[in-house]
């Protein structure tokens, strides 16, 4: 194992976060704070408790997931796409590094950045709403697994993208609607029966409900099904990345 190479890629990517601190940290913190102010305090004050939890507290797991998913995908996709775009990917390809080591470096850094943002979001939330976490270890496990899985997914997008537009398509057109329609701001039970059934085809519903269960011990979906869904998606991402890399990374001729 080329540990120095993994370390080099990891630190190099983390350094990108430091250089773009406004975009990496401040932007998600500001947008999440706005959600808490508008939905948690202003509108939330007029909404009764859901599952015995105030509306402001209820939306914390959903907003946390929204940030983790979009951050993990964009961090990782950009991390691998940018050297492809500038051409500096040549030095990664020409170095004595295995595909696995490249993935560990890039995905590890992306997941770390998302984890840092996730923790900051939680701290930010605690200023606006009363926060309780019934199962902190499970919450942390889901947090880490979500960051890793969606960073892998983002890595795949970055490998396959040929331009900036393609890089943005999945996060903006697929992930954001899925999160908003995945019960981040409401319970599935509040929907008409038909849309409840449709919602069960939305994979993000399982992620949000899993996270919500770790906070409050109740959700629309069994925690076991939520965790298994996340693990299944993790495996799908690993297989997807392995297939793309075996065909030349999307960067090798």
């Amino acid at each position, binding site marked *: 194992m*080329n*540990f*120095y*190479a993994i*370390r*080099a*890629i990891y*630190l*190099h990517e983390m*350094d990108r976060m430091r*250089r773009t601190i406004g975009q990496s940290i401040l932007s998600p913190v500001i947008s999440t704070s706005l959600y808490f102010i508008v939905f948690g305090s202003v509108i939330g004050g007029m909404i009764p408790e859901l599952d015995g939890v105030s509306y402001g507290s209820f939306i914390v797991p959903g907003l946390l997931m929204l940030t983790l998913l979009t951050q993990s995908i964009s961090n990782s996709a950009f991390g691998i796409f*940018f*050297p492809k775009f*500038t*051409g*500096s990917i*040549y*030095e*990664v*390809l*020409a*170095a*004595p*590094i295995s595909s696995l080591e490249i993935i560990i470096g890039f995905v590890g850094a992306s997941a770390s950045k998302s984890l840092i943002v996730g923790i900051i979001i939680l701290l930010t939330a605690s200023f606006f709403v009363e926060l309780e976490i019934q199962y902190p270890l499970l919450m942390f496990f889901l947090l880490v697994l979500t960051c890793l899985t969606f960073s892998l997914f983002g890595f795949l997008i970055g490998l396959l993208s040929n331009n900036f537009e393609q890089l943005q398509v999945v996060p903006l057109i697929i992930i954001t609607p899925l999160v908003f329609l995945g019960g981040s701001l409401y319970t599935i039970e509040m929907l008409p029966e038909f849309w409840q059934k449709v919602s069960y085809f939305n994979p993000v519903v399982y992620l949000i409900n899993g996270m919500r269960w770790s906070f409050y011990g109740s959700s629309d979906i069994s925690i076991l099904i939520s965790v298994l869904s996340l693990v299944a998606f993790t495996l799908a991402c690993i297989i997807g990345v392995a297939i793309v890399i075996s065909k*030349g990374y999307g960067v*090798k*001729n």
Partner: protein
Amino acid sequence: MKNIVSIKNLSKIYDNNFQALKDINLDIKKDEIIALLGPNGAGKTTLISIICGIVIPTSGSVSVDDFDIIKDYRKTRSQIGLVPQELTLEQFEFVFNNVSYTRGLYGKPPNPSLIEKILKDLSLWDKRNSRINELSGGMKRRVLIAKALSHEPSVLFLDEPSAGVDVELRQEMWEVIKDLRNTGVTIILTTHYIEEAEAIADRVAVINKGELLVVDNTSDLVQSMGQKTLIIDLHDAVNSLPSKLDKYNLNVLNNGLSVSYNYASKSKQTGITSLLQDMKEAGLKLKDINTEQSSLENIFVELVREK
């Protein structure tokens, strides 16, 4: 001398069915400077990209220091440094950090004193804390060389090192390359500047349309394939030459004050003696005589045209 790189029956066909390399066989000796010479699209970059692990070969094999580039890729790549043709650098990074990053990629522990020495040797030390986008084109190219040297490779590939570089910097670059060779680094450079190959390469390999046309010592190639030209200055200008001299295919130059005669330098009978004799008999008075060796450029053009 030991072969450090050995290429056997190497071919590459891209997905669009373009055959970039056709059955290339080439041995590169340790500590030499070899120039891969060829026009644009000849296959030079594909060849070095395969050796460096960036492009996957279709068939054939390549070994570096007796290790196969695919089976033993860690051993081969750790010995290779690559300076790409394009200025492919992350513009917002700092010079010192970026060079150190490359050393890490090659599995080497941080070594600030070595990076300092490399940057000083390449006159970049003053710019160590500058962002790459603040550097001139020539400095960026030197950063690429510093990155390629950061893991102490024994084989260095330079893809068109003087593309877009001014004359002064090009000569500076040649000095850097020669110094590197003196420290035991084997240098393989691609170029379409004949002057560059002639100035610094020990051997030249001419590639065109994916085929290796010739490999030889630079000076031997010039000697064996080169033509010489005899320039004869005349006392009095001539309007036309006597028919007796037609067989020599002379060219009249300088408003009739000079004639030139081409001959094969390695030929047993150059025809010079009989030419001078016939000119004397034709009543032409000679003022001066010079010879010119044809350049590598002429040879290259000739080789490419023949194909």
